[in-house]
Each structure stands twice: as structure tokens, then as C-alpha cells.
């Protein structure tokens, strides 16, 4: 009986103590789905270090992230594509881009009878996706894969049906290596594909490639690593064939850091450097330079500082490539401007 009487009082006291003791700070953000796993990990780990800070993230997609930060319904946005000049002109204040982690996109294929690893060059991938190279035994494929006996199977091109940062990185790369692709198709999260089938998300593309003899598509590096899907090396700007890995993706970012623009809106596909994997990209956090709520800004700054330093150590475990040190240094300088 006493227990029953005491319990509500105890609960009330605990709740009261909690509210009085620590002022909870809650920050909300929205945006890209690609970095969602690492962001969730960061927010929960940061919450363990600083129990008063609660960061909520809605993975609604890059487009949703950009529109929500523009309308100021969230404190921070996230996007797999840098915001366009047009989009930036519509925001009520100046927005900073902060690269947080790196991702890569890998070509995957299903060629009956071929066990050897197939190599690709940028122009070759573009020609396949343009529908100009249609058979696996085409001269262009044989030229970069000497000694591999290739079948006369039709190439079944598979791409993403959903608008996605992965498609953006892929088409951004193809636009850089093929003038014809740039002119006819261009780079975007969704494009008018000249040929092929579409699968939904990484798993849909992977399933279609796996099932269709002659299938050729692309998936996120993380997805390929987690599902141990074989991918082919791609020739980089230095002429080397490089397999996608966390190291080669970080190398691409390091190579690009030399010419980093002040606003970090940079594409690192086809980056220079012998070890750079050419189909790599940053993903960005979007923050206002002069947010209305100064207290939140201070908390967010502390978090970003942590994410760019200690947070980077959590990347590899989840399959993300960490930022190179020189990029982090540039970002910390930009972060100091937010107040």
C-alpha cells in the first residue's frame, strides 16, 4: 500500500528534478537519406556525451532538406548535392555548406561466363549508358579488358528510378568524362535516361542487375560493401584503374581539396591523384550563417566541431569514407563565422 502511494510522488519528483536540473536543447534537421545512418549514430553518440543535447533528423531526401532549410522549418538541412545558385538566391539568409562524410558509387555487372574482374573507363560507361555500346563483346569493352573472353550478350542498363544523390554523382561523373553525355543528358538526381531499365533504390538496382543476364548498373559503395557485391575498377583522371574503397574515396577528396572553392560547393568526381576513385562525392550539411536562435547556433557549432573531429572516427565502421584532414581544417574556419 505504501509503495503504491509513494510511487506517483517519486515519479513526479524525478520528472521535476529532470526538467529543472538540465535544460534540454532540441535541434531539428532534415534532408538526404544517404548519410542518415552516420548522422543517427553521431546524434545518439553526441547525446551520450552531452545528455542535454537532443538532435532529431528526418531523412526526407535532399530536395526536402533544401526546401525545409529555405523555409526555416528546420535548424539545419542536409543534401547530397550542393545547392544551386538559383536555390541559394531564394533563402532568407546566407547558407554555408559543410561537407560531412564521403560516398562513392560503383559500377556493378552480371556477365554470364565471366569470372574475371571487369575494368571500365569513364567514356566507356558513358557510351554504355548512352546506348551506343550494346553488347558485352564490344571492341570498346575488350580494349580495356585484354585477355577476358566476353560473351555476345546484350547489355541491360539498369539505373535508379527514384531521384537520388547516387544518380547525381553518377551522372555528374559521366558529364565530366563524356561531352556527349553532358550535352544530351546532363547531371541531376533524376535525368531523362537514354536507355535501360530502372530499379527502385540500391536494392532494386542490385536485384535487377543480379537477375538480368548482361545487366549493368550502379549502386552506392556502402551498399556494395555491406552486400559484398563485386564491382569493377574505374579509370581515374590520372589514368590508373582504381577500385572503390573508403581509402580511394577519401583520396579523391584530398586531391580535390587543393582547389577547394570557399563555399565548399564542389564536385569531386574525376578528381586528380593517382589513388583517387573517380566516382566519389561529399555530402553536405546546410547551416545559416546568421541563425535567429543564437543559443541553438552555439550548440550546433559544438556538435559540428565534434562531428568533424571525433565523429569522423565512426565513419569507417558504417562504411562511409572520412574527410581528409585538409578539408576539415578549412571547414572549421568557416564554422567559426557562424554566430
Amino acid at each position, binding site marked *: 500500500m505504501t509503495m503504491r502511494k509513494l510511487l506517483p510522488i517519486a515519479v513526479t519528483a524525478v520528472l521535476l528534478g529532470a526538467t529543472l536540473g538540465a535544460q534540454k536543447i532540441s535541434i531539428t534537421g532534415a534532408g538526404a*537519406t544517404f548519410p542518415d545512418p552516420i548522422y543517427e549514430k553521431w546524434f545518439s553518440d553526441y547525446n551520450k556525451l552531452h545528455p542535454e543535447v537532443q538532435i532529431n533528423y528526418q531523412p*526526407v*531526401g*535532399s*530536395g*526536402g532538406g*533544401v*526546401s525545409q532549410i529555405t523555409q526555416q522549418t528546420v535548424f539545419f538541412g542536409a*543534401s*547530397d*548535392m550542393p*545547392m*544551386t545558385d*538559383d*536555390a541559394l538566391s531564394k533563402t532568407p539568409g546566407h547558407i554555408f555548406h559543410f561537407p560531412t562524410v564521403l560516398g562513392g558509387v560503383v559500377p556493378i555487372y552480371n556477365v554470364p561466363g565471366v569470372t574475371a574482374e571487369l575494368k571500365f573507363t569513364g567514356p566507356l560507361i558513358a557510351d554504355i549508358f548512352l546506348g551506343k555500346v550494346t553488347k558485352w563483346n564490344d571492341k570498346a569493352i575488350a580494349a580495356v579488358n585484354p585477355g577476358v573472353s566476353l560473351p555476345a550478350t*546484350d547489355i*541491360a542498363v539498369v539505373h535508379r*528510378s*527514384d*531521384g*537520388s*544523390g547516387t544518380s547525381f554523382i553518377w551522372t555528374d561523373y559521366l558529364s565530366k568524362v563524356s561531352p556527349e553525355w553532358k550535352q544530351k*543528358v*546532363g*547531371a*541531376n*538526381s*533524376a*535525368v*531523362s*535516361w537514354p536507355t*535501360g*531499365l*530502372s*530499379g*527502385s533504390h540500391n536494392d*532494386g538496382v542490385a*536485384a*535487377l542487375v543480379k*537477375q*538480368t543476364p548482361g545487366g549493368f548498373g550502379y549502386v552506392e559503395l556502402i551498399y556494395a560493401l555491406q552486400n559484398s557485391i563485386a564491382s569493377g575498377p574505374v579509370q581515374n583522371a590520372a589514368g590508373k584503374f582504381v577500385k572503390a574503397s573508403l581509402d580511394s574515396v577519401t583520396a579523391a577528396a584530398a586531391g580535390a581539396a587543393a582547389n577547394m572553392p570557399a563555399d565548399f560547393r564542389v564536385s569531386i568526381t574525376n578528381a586528380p591523384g593517382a589513388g583517387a576513385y573517380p566516382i566519389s562525392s561529399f555530402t553536405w550539411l546546410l547551416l545559416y550563417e546568421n541563425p535567429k536562435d543564437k543559443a541553438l547556433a552555439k550548440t550546433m557549432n559544438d556538435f559540428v566541431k565534434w562531428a568533424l573531429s571525433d565523429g569522423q572516427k565512426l565513419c569507417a565502421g558504417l562504411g562511409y569514407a572520412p574527410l581528409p584532414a585538409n578539408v576539415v581544417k578549412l571547414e572549421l574556419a568557416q564554422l567559426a563565422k557562424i554566430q
Partner: protein
Amino acid sequence: MARPRTSAGDVLFQGGTGLFALVIVIITAGIAFVLWGRSALTIAKFGFGFWGTDRWDPVSGDFGARTFIWGTLYSSILALAISTPLALGIAIFLSELCPHRLRQPLAFLTELLAAIPSIVYGLWGIFVLVPAIRAVEQALPDWIRATPLFSGPAVGVGMMSAAVVLAVMIVPFSSAVAREVLKAVPAAQREGAYALGATRWEATKIALYYTRVGIVGAVMLGLGRALGETMAVTMVIGNTPQVSASLLAPQYTMAAVIANEFAEATSSLHISALVEIGLVLFTVTLVVNAASRLLIWRMTRQPHERSIVAPLVPEEKSA
């Protein structure tokens, strides 16, 4: 006729339920209004040309809905063509021919199909149906593959897979409604038919004729579902915007393109185009529903006395 007595409660009840009915009108009008407002950019830029253009290029900012309208209508009509005979067969078997003990379990199983989420149908489609359909497509003889209906490479994903998935998804709805309608046929109707010496087939025909309005309603309910179905379709249709009669060709639907591209659409023109696709889908659904209402209205307007006896007693030829 004397007016029924009214009380304050009656008035309140009428007002309250009337308000609920009004909410539906307001929501529908609100949807149309918002869709119209949010697609102002593309409405201004493309006008009615949006309905008839094939191009869909988010990079250059050229948008048209024709391929998606075609994909939605074609997949839905194909699905109806497959599901209607199936659903009617199930309904007739369950209401007219099925042994009593089997009736409940069978009805339960068909209705269970309706409770499966569409993503599950989609996954089943990708991993089971598509490979099976690909095998069927590849086994088709060359002279069939030469016809426009089966032209193009046999990759499995495409219109045929979408139509089959949709058909499986709408069968439980159509068959459940058709079964309820057939159950509502008065016993006297059936007994009368048998008393006149009708065979089982003839009695079933009479029951179907008696319930034709409800049956059409059941089919139309399925059509409504098919028009709006998104996830399962997008996973197997191939998502390629093109107008093709070929069952093998990958195509695209309105609901699918909205679901696929909305989240990552960043340019305001692209977003506006997607919202206008929603407006087009809204309009197409409205037109299809209005057409089915019209069909039902015309059927019920026919003179009643002809409706039941006509199939049995030959009409006397007028001189």
C-alpha cells in the same frame, strides 16, 4: 404523407452527419486547390501541352505527362482484364457453387490478400514474378515476339509484370464486393429460376444479371485501386517513360514517378511538374469514376420488367 415528428436530437444528428459529409467535399476541393496552386509554374509554362508531351527531362526542365498517363491507364486496364474474370469466378463459386464448409475459409483467404502491404507485393514481384515472367517471355515463339504486343527485349520487368501484380492486388477487392452483391440476390429469385426449369448456369446468369450494377461497381472499385497503386507497380514496371503497346516494354505510371522523384527534386520547376502529375492523376481518376457512375446510372435506368425475364423468355417479334 405526414411529416415525421422531429426532435432536437434529430436535428443535431442530421446536422452532425451532414457536417461529416461536408468534410469530404472540403477535403476533395482542398486537394484540387492545393495541387492547382503548387503546379502554377508548370501550368503557366506548358499549359495544356503538358498533357500531350512525351518528354520528361528534369535537367533541361522539359516536362510532359503523356507517357505517364498512358502507363497508368494501360496497366490499370490490363490489370482489370486479368482480374475481372478471376474475381467474378471466385465470387460466383463462393456464393453459388461452393460447399458450405469451404465457403468461409476461402472467402477469408481471398480477403487476406487485400491485407498484404503493397511493398510486399512489390518484393514478391521483383524476386518471384519478374523472373517467372522473363522465362515466359523468352519462351514465346518468334512469330508472337514479332507482333507489336510482344516486341522488344524480354527483360521481365515491364508492363506485363505490372499488370499481373496489379491484378493480384485488386482481385480480393473486386471479388469480395461481387460476392456480397451476389449474396444479396433474394432467395425467391433463385428459387423462381429453378422452378421455371433453369439449369444452374442459367440461374447464375440470372443472378449476375440481377446484380449487374453491383458487379460493375465491384470492378470499378478495383480500377480505382489500380490507378493509384504506387509501390508494387514501380518495383516491377521498369520506370521508363515511353508510350508503347508492347507488354514486354518497361513503362512508367503517374503515381510511380511522383513517389520516385519527389523527395529528391530540388528545382522548383521539377517539383511543380510532379505536383501537376498529381493534378493530372486526380483528374483522370475523377473522369474514370464519373464514367463508371454514368455507366451504372444508364444500367439502372433500363425498364425493370425486362431485366429479369428477358434472358429466359424470348421476346415476341413485333410485326
